[in-house]
């Protein structure tokens, strides 16, 4: 970075020159300092995919002659056809970001500051702590939490490491917060856990139902498929408490009260039955359990559900007629219906709707769930989830256990039983049942509900290590932090929302001192005495074992190879042989993956959310994403352009509460209270308030949310809890991001001090400052 004399102003065309004494992207043009110093004459384009959401857009990374990633170029990939969202465009800025961790950090207790340590020292210390804790309290006292932003190879390693090297039952992953409700429902109904149709089927549909998904902000690139369908004349129904950007222009927007989805869909099915719009031929041939479902929905006439959901009866009837009356209809849903204590049931009611109208397994007719994380789909298929083994095998099925033990070369008696879910593991930390933990690329301090519990659980740990490339809020609380690669510094596969496996390619060498997650896991395993089972030099070798481990299962990757992925741009599993084209659309032969080949329709009764409303807490608090940030924000809250776009969270409130834009509003729930600037809008129900969740305390939506879980999928109920709002004095400020020793925090968060209104939230002001 060029140094200047104080008082001199930088030239606007040279953002590499930052104002004196600052490291502020806003003043430096929002782009890394060395962006324009790259020698673009000799640049190469490395084809890869975005590291963020489940759409997995293709992109090229621009690499200069020196081998450094310095930019992005749109890529005409089958999934996104050149389109990108702001996260994808700015993703490359993580790679050579000054805040990257480049040395292991260590300390013996949390009161000390971190010190830089050698890899040997950090690995040996970690292994010594694992041995000490397991020796004293048993193997299960040490847990492992993985992530769904990891490549599938790494998620396979996480599961294998926990069970073979750690020999602990306690392994889970942050996809538990993402779409396990959909996974549970798919498994129950179809015997397979993935979306039934590819995105391209949306282009062929006549009626598209989107439930609980702010597609415009969370999966922007999917909107091209929505418009492609609408340009053909398809109708669009959006079910969401907020009038989001896609709901604004939808043919029908049902703004139901949070936590009432199953009552709504049961009523829709009630109308479909009452009006004789069911596909009885299909039901007779392909489903079981229909009679019970039919009997159940009799108790949900529109008049009853309209009261539960707070929507006009007419909208329930309209939804039924539009969906069942269309030639081909599709339903896609996301976290809005899944983040509930009845998340699995909500998904089941949507599946019932598709099955009752015969909309399964045809071009333009089907069912899909939109994964939130890049590898939300692949991340749970190969053993990272507490109850699953590679290939989607069940850890409680003796035959499945035997198969995996044979592949791994261990005795069946050595394979631990099923573990617990992520949130339950935190409770076990509180109860001192889990005393040591390794977290890999996750940030529960921001992403888990009921922050007070999470903090308490982690603080109770005797030893805690984190893998990450930025010092996340969770890593800042650890004893050891391992600096690992970003996605562009390693190769590997991810499975997107369509279950299409895509390959990410390596674009540059990692900085000195940084290792791949694969290397760190294998080194730990070696030191734990399981080195022979973890002799993986790279992702490719892991993938070869994963292929074999998944062969013959429902989640069959055997026919997928790196070479095929590079040639084809992605293959949807199951793909049993190397000449198999993959399975973009499921159930085309009319058979599900249950032994009887039928759709097992499930009875669902609505019940209220777990956090009861009262006079004191009359409103629903719901949470979600904003387009500029991703999950816990650890990757996006350090990228200037994205910080500039959305510097801080806000609370969306209806005008009927009497607040004005920017007023400090205290949101109070039974877990705590925080003050956000108000964003006053008619685009939200009067009985609901919304806060985006990407920021840490004291601006964390998850300090307010409830840690109630779905009994089947164990997903937390992020999307509804009882709340009240009141006027406050001062807005809570976004804290500066944690930094490693020797690093200075960007003063970017000063934005929030000078600019209380989110400039780019839905009703915020425009971004560009007019001259």
């Amino acid at each position: 970075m060029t140094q200047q004399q104080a008082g001199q102003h930088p030239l606007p065309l040279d953002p590499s020159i930052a104002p004196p004494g600052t490291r502020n992207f806003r003043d430096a043009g929002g782009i890394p300092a060395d962006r324009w110093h790259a020698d673009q004459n000799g640049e190469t384009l490395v084809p890869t995919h975005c590291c963020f959401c489940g759409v997995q857009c293709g992109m090229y990374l621009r690499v200069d002659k020196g081998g450094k990633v310095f930019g992005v170029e749109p890529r005409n990939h089958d999934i996104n056809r050149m389109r990108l969202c702001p996260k994808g465009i700015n993703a490359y800025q993580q790679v050579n970001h000054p805040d990257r961790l480049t040395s292991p950090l260590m300390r013996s207790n949390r009161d000390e500051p971190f010190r830089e340590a050698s890899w040997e020292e950090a690995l040996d210390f970690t292994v010594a702590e694992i041995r000490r804790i397991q020796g004293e309290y048993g193997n299960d006292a040490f847990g492992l939490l993985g992530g769904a932003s990891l490549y599938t190879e790494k998620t396979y390693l996480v599961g294998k490491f926990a069970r073979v090297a750690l020999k602990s039952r306690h392994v889970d992953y942050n996809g538990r917060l993402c779409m396990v409700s959909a996974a549970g429902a798919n498994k129950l109904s179809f015997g397979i856990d993935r979306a039934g149709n590819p995105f391209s089927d949306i282009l062929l549909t006549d009626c598209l139902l989107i439930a609980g998904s702010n597609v415009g902000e969370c999966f922007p690139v999917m909107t091209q498929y929505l418009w492609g369908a609408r340009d053909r004349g398809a109708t669009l129904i959006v079910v969401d408490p907020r009038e989001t950007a896609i709901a604004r222009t939808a043919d029908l927007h049902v703004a139901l009260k949070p936590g009432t989805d199953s009552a709504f869909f049961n009523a829709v099915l009630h109308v479909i039955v009452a009006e004789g719009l069911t596909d009885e031929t299909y039901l007779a041939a392909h489903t079981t359990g229909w009679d019970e479902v039919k009997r159940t929905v009799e108790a949900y006439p529109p008049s009853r559900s309209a009261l539960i959901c707070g929507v006009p009866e007419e909208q329930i009837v309209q939804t039924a007629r539009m969906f069942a009356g269309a030639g081909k209809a599709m339903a896609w849903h996301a976290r809005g219906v899944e983040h509930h204590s009845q998340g699995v049931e909500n998904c089941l009611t949507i599946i019932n709707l598709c099955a009752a109208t015969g909309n399964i397994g045809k071009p333009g007719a089907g069912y899909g769930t939109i994964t939130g994380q890049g590898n939300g789909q692949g991340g749970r298929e190969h053993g990272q989830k507490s109850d699953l083994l590679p290939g989607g095998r069940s850890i409680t099925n003796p035959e499945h256990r035997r198969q995996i033990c044979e592949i791994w070369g261990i005795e069946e008696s050595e394979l631990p039983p099923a573990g617990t879910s992520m949130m339950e593991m935190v409770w076990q930390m509180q109860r001192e049942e889990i005393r040591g933990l390794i977290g890999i690329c996750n940030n529960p301090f921001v992403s888990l509900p009921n922050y007070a519990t999470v903090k308490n659980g982690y603080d109770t740990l005797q030893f805690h290590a984190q893998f990450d490339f930025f010092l996340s809020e969770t890593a800042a609380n650890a004893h050891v932090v391992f600096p690992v690669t970003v996605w562009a510094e390693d190769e590997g596969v991810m499975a997107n929302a369509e279950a299409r496996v895509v390959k990410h390619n390596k674009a540059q060498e990692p900085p000195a001192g940084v290792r791949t997650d694969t290397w760190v896991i294998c080194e730990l395993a070696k030191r734990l005495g399981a080195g022979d089972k973890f002799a993986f030099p790279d992702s490719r070798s892991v993938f070869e074992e994963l292929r074999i481990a998944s062969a013959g299962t429902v989640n069959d990757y055997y026919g997928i190879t790196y070479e095929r992925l590079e040639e084809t741009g992605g293959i949807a599993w199951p793909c049993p042989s190397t000449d198999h084209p993959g399975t973009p659309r499921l159930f085309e032969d009319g058979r599900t993956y249950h032994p009887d080949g039928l759709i097992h329709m499930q009875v669902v009764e609505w019940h209220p959310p777990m956090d009861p409303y009262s006079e004191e807490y009359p409103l629903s608090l719901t949470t979600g994403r904003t387009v500029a940030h991703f999950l816990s924000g650890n990757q996006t809250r350090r990228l200037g352009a994205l910080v500039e776009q959305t510097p801080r969270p806000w609370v969306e409130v209806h005008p009927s509460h009497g607040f004005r834009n920017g007023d400090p509003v205290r949101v109070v729930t039974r877990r705590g209270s925080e003050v956000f600037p108000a964003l006053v809008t008619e685009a939200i129900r009067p009985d609901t308030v919304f806060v985006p969740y990407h920021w840490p305390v004291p601006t964390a939506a998850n300090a307010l949310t409830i840690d109630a879980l779905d009994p089947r999928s164990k997903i937390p109920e992020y999307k509804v809890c009882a709340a009240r709002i009141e006027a406050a004095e001062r807005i809570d400020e976004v804290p500066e991001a944690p930094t490693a020793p020797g690093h200075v925090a960007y003063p970017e968060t000063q934005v929030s001090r000078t600019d209380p209104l989110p400039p780019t939230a839905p009703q915020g002001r425009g971004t560009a400052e007019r001259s």
Partner: protein
Amino acid sequence: MMGRTIFIDPGRCIGCQACVSACRECDSHRGKSMIHLDYPDEGHSVASLPTVCMHCEDPVAPCAEVCPADAILVTADGVVQQADTTRCIGCANCVNACPFGVPKIDLQAKLQMKCNLCYDRTAYGLAPMCATVCPTGALFYGTLDELRAERPGVQVADSFTFGTTTVSTGVAMVVPADKVQWPVPGGLPVVEINGVDVR
């Protein structure tokens, strides 16, 4: 309207600002975005709208007409370029002249910058960065025939009235098919100038 141009469809805009970020990545203004993203109905609707340079055709580029330094040049294909840095004196006449509020001025550097339809890309047959990445197609680059093939029945407008002045542009707006007005009202009528009522 130019042959290949940008069509803006506010109905499809989701306010995601992919265009704003993509514009920053472009080589012609190095890290600064030239796109204005506005929320025309704040508090009532999440509607949003991107504004790129409209590349005015008639009267030819008001910004260029008022430039005392002849810094704003119009290429043969109708693209109004951003100010030539060797000529621009940062006087901001162009900012005042533009009916769409497009040009930006850096007062410290005394330079104007604005959208130049990604000339470094369009000259090679590529679409501008913003229209390349726009997830919804709210920014579409191509010919009117290509747009109509993709979106049957679409109606566009490329002339706008500001008071008594009509401006025809190279970039076109998609307008509601049932409310085609020609030309589109582009601003509020002028009521007074320097305190003098001119109605």
